[in-house]
């Protein structure tokens, strides 16, 4: 099924190193490969330092990749050179940030924050059209039309995040990278923002790369999921598959650590420990993502594939 869908983003062997050649070299992203299909939500989960945010930032070209390539709609984004190239690229791809308190300029009015993209891309022919576009956007994200002449400090965290979403939508992008968009919000507000993102996706045919550490929320919003650890992508599959039938030990350990709002479950919870030494690389037997069952990949050596297939088979038998 999924093979027939159009790939909107292809990340191939992406490496993003910092302080290259120095003693404190950091391999923040190390040989990561995955595709995102048009119209889906791809969730990237991992703990702090796993490289998930760096991956997102590389994709929107805030960094020059150390190695590997990123194709957006078939075009290599590292080949973008002129200002015009970047303008048209950033019109297609936008970002929503984690901290709604830091990502809005406190000295700008909401209408100017939201309209910044409209101005840069000359999408409005006059002031009246600009105002109308801004007000329509505010309404789309569930804010009041007459909020447009206010300043960021007059809004709560959830409302600010809605403003950030309106700003991203202003240039009518195809692809949005949402980097921990709800982790700074209260529980009752998180669900509002996530549901808004889902509705917008349906109405505008958006594709999301959703980066988060909250596994239950990622599971809820994503179609497919990639699990990152120490700069490497360890497992990729559909959200349901990865959660119900985790194949990699790290994924199983991560899922077992998520607290669940159910005292019965919590009383019987056993956390699965994870030993990172199984990830050791052998030069003659390289580890890479290999397909275990259709659409479900695990980073492993050639020899380990059979073992993982058995594990997947055992899950199936159980069900």
């Amino acid at each position: 099924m999924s093979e027939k869908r159009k790939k909107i983003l292809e990340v191939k062997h992406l490496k993003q190193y910092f302080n290259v050649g120095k003693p404190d070299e950091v391999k923040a992203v190390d040989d990561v490969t995955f595709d995102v299909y048009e119209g889906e939500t791809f969730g990237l989960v991992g703990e702090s330092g796993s490289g998930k945010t760096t991956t997102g930032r590389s994709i929107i070209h805030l960094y020059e990749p150390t190695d590997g390539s990123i194709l957006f709609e078939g075009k290599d984004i590292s080949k973008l050179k002129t200002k015009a190239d970047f303008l048209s690229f950033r019109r297609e791809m936008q970002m929503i940030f984690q901290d709604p308190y830091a990502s809005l300029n406190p000295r700008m009015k909401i209408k100017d924050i939201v309209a910044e993209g409209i101005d840069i891309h000359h999408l409005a022919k006059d002031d009246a059209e600009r105002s109308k576009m801004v007000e329509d956007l505010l309404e789309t994200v569930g804010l009041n039309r007459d909020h447009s002449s206010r300043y960021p400090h007059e809004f709560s965290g959830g409302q600010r995040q809605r403003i950030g979403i309106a700003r991203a939508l202003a240039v009518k992008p195809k692809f949005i990278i949402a980097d921990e968009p709800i982790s700074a919000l209260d529980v009752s507000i998180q669900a509002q923002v996530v549901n808004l993102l889902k509705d917008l996706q349906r109405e505008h045919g958006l594709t999301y790369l959703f980066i988060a550490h909250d596994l239950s929320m990622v599971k809820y919003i994503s179609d497919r999921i990639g699990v990152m650890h120490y700069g490497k992508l360890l497992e990729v599959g559909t959200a349901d598959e990865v959660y119900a039938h985790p194949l990699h030990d790290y994924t199983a350990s991560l899922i077992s650590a998520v607290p669940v709002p159910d005292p019965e479950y919590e009383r019987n919870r056993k956390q699965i420990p994870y030993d990172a030494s199984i990830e050791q690389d052998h030069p003659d037997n390289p580890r890479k993502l290999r397909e275990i069952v259709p659409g479900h990949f695990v980073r492993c050596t050639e020899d380990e594939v059979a073992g993982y297939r058995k594990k997947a088979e055992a899950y199936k038998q159980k069900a």
Partner: protein
Amino acid sequence: MAERILDVKNLKIDFHTYAGAVKAIRDVSFHLDKGETLAIVGESGSGKSVTTKSLMGLLANNAEVTGGSIMFHDQDILKKSEKEMQNIRGKDIAMIFQDPMTSLDPTMRIGQQIAEPLIKHKHVDKKKAWSQALELMKLVGITDAEERIKNYPHQFSGGQRQRIVIAIALVCYPEILIADEPTTALDVTIQAQILELMKELQEKIETSIIFITHDLGVVAGMADRVAVMYAGQIVEYGTVDEIFFNPQHPYTWGLLNSMPTLSSTKLEAIPGTPPDLLDPPKGDPFVARNPYAMKIDAEQRPPFFKVSETHYAATWLLHPDAPKVTPPDEIVRRRQTFKDIMAHKAI
């Protein structure tokens, strides 16, 4: 019956701001028994942190306690002078803060930071205090404790720092440990370790814990009893099973309904935002966001209705004359689980 060590009655706290008095705590009562864990859950601004700060005598300068009492055994904490509070803080009542990155002194060796309360409160000599600090570092799971006792905070990871903060809080074997979002800044795998550690230590030193958090998953795993706060008031309290499987207040329903579980397919958000406490609503504070609200909710604050010996909820829906409403599906499902648990207990 368990010994009652803390009894908070009708606590009221205002904050004076340029815009007027913010009524942050509006008539809050709860108690804490020896050895138990009480979780206080609520959103930011609900008053959960202010409540615990008042227990420690750490309220900001613009705060004013306008009523109520906080009885710690037979003494009222609100009547203590700052000097007297210094003898209670860190010795009888200790606190773990949210952010392990900022709650340690960056210029002090961690051994000294752990030993400090012993030297101050228990008048232990320095050498003995350091050796007790070493024991405690081992107890909270810091490897190579002999070496690391001389290190500074920046040489530790976030999870290790939170272990050290816990060691400092527990060094005088306090009767009450207040943990204010102690794992919010940590990754899930580290969070699981820290929570496990807190449970183990609680058994070892027999302390009572007040656990402040907005994460209902953490509450489900840690708490014996739960108090749900909203807009400066407690709206429902009961045992952990009663709150999670037989909730009565529509706000508790909303909270449970808006949390994704690993199996949920639909999230029901609570619409709107909490009320402004400069001018709090006079009835049920949740009225504006409550799909089950009745006329009386806007006019009169509901009293606590008794659900069981341990379970009370402040909602007019429990009034004998109130219409019967069907809660959201997720709550109906949880109530079925509650029936199963109760049936199982009866056997």
